[in-house]
Each structure stands twice: as structure tokens, then as C-alpha cells.
């Protein structure tokens, strides 16, 4: 008590502040910064968890360059991200524009479209595995109705990754909702003014909606890239990385090296390469943002 009395109010506040944020600081070091540093160290070692880590220098990174499965996993992950992220972005933006109309019963559609985002992971993967069943699944039944003979999907190395991309579209509800909120914050006067000037809907969409929404598109793009490059459950549950490694995602390969083969050092090197790739893509989006992301200065004043 006596000690506390000597504190000035500002010092007292600072002390309280540190106490309040201490869990976050501890968590930051124990579960984030510490492990990142440890991961960097382990990536230069050979470590099977039972023994002690043995320093091997750059060996893991050299091995990685000559590992066909690493390149395969990189290819699978990049193809998945490059296709699924823009596709999901366009679909969810399109849905949001559709849902932003004053139509009867529109809220029912909002609920329906968001519903799949509530469940995730294993349940979704199991369900879609059954949907894609080539002989008895509902996907090929539906395609059959249209007169198309469906492929073997998850059993065909040319189609398995594509099937997982289709499945990813089922979960666009979350980003759709974010776009919708963005759309609703665009002042209607802008559209009214454009209408008086004779702008048609396409012009309005390209010159009002897209620029006004660009900060939201930016946010969804960054989150989408980070998420897509770390896909794991789909590959693990639906295909075990197969057939013929056509769905061997980077994190799945990392998981196998760490927990199936107990190569913690090599797995750490894989993690760092993935980290650098994610960082590179995120940086690319950030650096390009002044060219296409539009921030309206005046709107900050109302916040």
C-alpha cells in the first residue's frame, strides 16, 4: 500500500496498463514470437523430438530444393490459391450485389447463403466427399440430369483439386456478408447523382461500387490469400493428399513431415518457406494497394 501511494497518477496508470495487457504480452512471447524464433532455429537442425536437435546448417533448405514432393505441394497450393481466391472473391461480391437489392424475402437468402460458413472443417469435408462420390454422389446425379457424364472427381488426379475448389465456393458466405456491409455503407446519393448524369448500371458499378468497395475487397483478398495458402483439412480428410499427390497441400506435407515422419527440422524449414511465400503475396497486395484501393478522406471524419 505504502508503495502505491508514492506513485504519481500517470505512473499508476502505466502500471495498471501493463498489468491489464500482461496476458497479451505473455501470450505474444510464449505462443507467437518465441515459437517463430524457435521455428527459425529448428529449421537449421535435424530433430526427431526424442533426441536433441543437431545443427545441420542449410541442409534442410538444400534438401527441400531437391524434394519433388515439396515442389508438388507448392504447385498444388499455389494453383488452389490462384484459382479459388479470385473465384471466391468474384462470386461473393456478385452475391452481395444481388442481396443488396430491395426485394421481398431477401433476408431469407442472406441466411441461406451464410449458413455453410457456420459449419466448417471435418463435417464439410466428409459431406462433400460423399457428394463427389462418382457412382452414387449427388454431383454426378445432377450432372447426369443435364446430360453430362461426371468425372471421377476425388478419384481422378486431374479433377480432385478442382473438386476441392468447387467445394470452397460453398463457404463464401462470410466474405459475402462483409461485402454486403460495405455496399450498404456507400451513400445512395452517389448513385442518384450518377443516374441524373445518365450513367447506366454497369458504369455505376465500375465507377462507384468497385472504387468505394475497394478497401473491403482489399481486406477480403488478404484474408483469402492467407487462408487459401494454409488449407489442410480438405486434403487430409477428403483425399489424404491423393490421388497421386494431386491434392498434397503445403500444410498437409508439412504435417506429415512433422508428425508422421518426425522430421521436425525439415518441417520447420517447410513452414518457413510457406511463411515467406505468404508474406510475399501479402506484401504484393499491400504494395499494389495504392494503385487500386480508394480511401475517401472525408469519411474518416464521421467515425
Amino acid at each position, binding site marked *: 500500500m505504502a508503495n502505491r501511494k508514492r506513485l504519481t497518477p500517470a505512473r499508476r496508470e502505466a502500471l495498471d496498463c501493463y498489468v491489464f495487457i500482461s496476458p497479451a504480452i505473455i*501470450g505474444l512471447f510464449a505462443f507467437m514470437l518465441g*515459437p517463430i524464433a524457435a521455428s527459425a532455429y529448428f529449421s537449421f537442425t535435424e530433430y526427431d523430438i526424442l533426441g536433441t536437435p543437431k545443427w545441420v546448417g542449410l541442409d534442410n533448405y538444400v534438401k527441400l530444393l531437391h524434394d519433388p514432393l515439396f515442389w508438388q505441394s507448392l504447385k498444388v497450393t499455389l494453383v488452389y490459391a490462384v484459382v479459388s481466391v479470385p473465384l471466391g472473391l468474384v462470386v461473393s461480391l456478385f452475391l452481395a450485389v444481388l442481396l443488396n437489392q430491395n426485394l421481398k424475402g431477401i433476408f431469407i437468402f442472406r441466411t441461406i447463403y451464410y449458413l455453410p460458413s457456420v459449419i466448417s472443417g471435418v463435417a464439410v469435408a466428409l459431406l462433400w466427399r460423399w457428394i463427389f462420390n462418382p457412382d452414387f454422389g449427388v454431383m454426378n446425379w445432377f450432372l447426369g440430369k443435364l446430360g453430362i457424364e461426371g468425372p471421377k472427381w476425388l478419384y481422378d488426379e486431374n479433377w480432385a483439386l478442382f473438386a476441392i475448389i468447387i467445394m470452397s465456393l460453398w463457404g463464401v458466405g462470410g466474405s459475402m456478408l462483409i461485402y454486403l456491409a460495405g455496399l450498404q455503407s456507400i451513400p445512395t446519393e452517389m448513385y442518384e447523382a450518377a443516374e441524373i448524369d445518365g450513367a447506366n448500371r454497369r458504369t455505376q458499378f465500375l465507377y462507384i461500387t468497385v472504387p468505394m468497395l475497394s478497401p473491403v475487397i482489399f481486406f477480403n483478398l488478404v484474408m483469402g490469400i492467407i487462408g487459401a495458402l494454409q488449407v489442410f483439412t480438405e486434403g487430409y480428410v477428403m483425399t489424404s493428399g491423393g490421388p497421386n499427390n494431386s491434392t498434397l497441400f503445403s500444410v498437409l506435407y508439412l504435417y506429415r513431415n512433422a508428425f508422421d515422419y518426425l522430421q521436425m527440422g525439415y518441417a520447420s524449414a517447410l513452414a518457413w518457406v510457406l511463411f515467406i511465400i505468404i508474406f510475399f503475396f501479402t506484401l504484393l497486395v499491400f504494395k499494389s494497394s495504392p494503385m487500386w484501393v480508394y480511401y475517401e478522406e472525408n469519411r474518416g471524419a464521421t467515425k
Partner: protein
Amino acid sequence: MKIETGPAVIVRKRMGKKASSRIRAAVSYMLLCAGALFVLTPFAWMISTSLKKKTEVYVFPPEWIPSPAQWHNFIDAFTIFPFHRYTLNSAIIVVFVLAGALLSSSFTTYGFARLNAPGKNLIFMILLSTMMLPSAVTMVPLYILFNKLGWVDTFKPLIVPSWFGSAFFIFLLRQFYMGIPRELEDSARIDGCSSYGIWWRIMVPLTKPALATVAVFSFMSTWNDFMGPLIYLTSEEKRTIALGLSYFQGSARSAPELHLLMAATLYAISPCIVLFFLCQKLFVKGIVFTGVKG
């Protein structure tokens, strides 16, 4: 969305506009229904399969309405795999994670949002940037750490980190704290209330809606988490629902029991679906808040 009562200039066009807006509405409904079909068919397919006899599952073209509905599939699924045990495990983890996430996030947010100390903003920035950190990087070293502590095959690796505040929740709550007038705190401080008292007696009750959002999100991510339990839980009786399901499939591969697998899947997702319908507003608010204001 469009306002039909514009200035005189556009009145001329109005008749044509009415017709075209009707066509637009019709096209919109058609697209929306097609999309809804794509979203809902998997759910219908899951429910349909879960109520079928084993022999009905492998019929092509599929029968959508099983007759009679095999309700006992749900009981059968429980006898093959101890899903009541898995449910209990998931529930235990969820309860401790929720308690930790709510208390720690709310507590730390008060410091970040209301108090000042040198270096606070820097720490906040670092914390925010960790939201973009791929969890794959920390996966291996965290496993090594928890293994050293002897926590593998316990619930601790899945629970303990949630007690140290999550960047996502702190960010969400901070937005909320900003909107609470400072006068309330000032008068409490004059009455001799400490920062801790203010947090507990004023901020916690006032931020209840935001805390509910945190609770819902935290529940969802914990209930659906697969990778964490997969890495840390090794013995059979400690499996969570999500992990149990994936092993169910493993056994279904050798002996196809797809109707039971779908019944189990339906059971596993039902709490999330129910929660979603009960707190739709919270969901929307949480997503929109973190997405747009970010």
C-alpha cells in the same frame, strides 16, 4: 435500391424503367434461387442419407425421401463410436476456452483501449500483425514446447493459449470499448474506484453484446477445430467430436456405413446450426465489425 422519384429529367424514362426494374427483379430472383439450390442441396443430401437404410444409400439414381425414415441411425452411430464421450470432451474444451477467451480478451482490451503506458501502442501493433501470421509456422515449435511440458494427450494445449488474449478478439472488443463514454469511468474514479473495479463493474457489463459475439465465434472455432485435436490428442477416449468424425470415416472406408457417417456429421454440426439461428444478429455484427472497420 434505386429511387424512382427523381427530378423531372428522369420522369420521361419512368415507364420504361418500371418494366426494366421488374425484369431485373425477376432475373435476380432466378439467380438467387439457383445459388440457394447450390447451398441447400448438400444439406438436403446429408439429411436424406442420414435417414436411409444401408442398402438405400447405394442406389442410383438416388431416392431423396427415404421410406420409412431410419431414425435409429442416430442411435446406431452412437453405438459404433462413443460420440457421447466425444461430445463431453468437446464441451469441456469449449467451456474452458470460452472462459479464458472472454476473461483475458476483455481484461487486456481495457488496458489497450483506455490506459496509457510507454510502448503500449507498439505492442498493440505487433499483436495486430500476428493476426496475419500463418499458424503453420508456430505449429511445430508449439508442439515441441507442449511436448516438453508433458501436455501432449491432454486438453491443455487446446485450452491454455486462449487464456492469454487473442488478437482477433482484442481488436473486436477494442472497437466496442471506444464507443463507451469516458464520463462513466471518470465519475467512478472520483468515487475511488480502481482501474480493476472499473473494468469489472463498468466495462464488462456495458460490453456484454460484444462479449456475446466473442463467445459465439470462440465456440464455433473451438467446436470445429480439427488440426489442434489431431496434433495433440492421441488416445481414443480423449477425442473431440471433429476428430472422432474423421476416425469414423477411417472405419467407414473399410466397411461403408455412409448413412451412419452422415447421421454423425449431422449431429456434430447441429449445435453450430442451432446457435446460428439463435444469435444470427451477433454473427452478422461480429463479421461486419471486424471486416469493414478493419
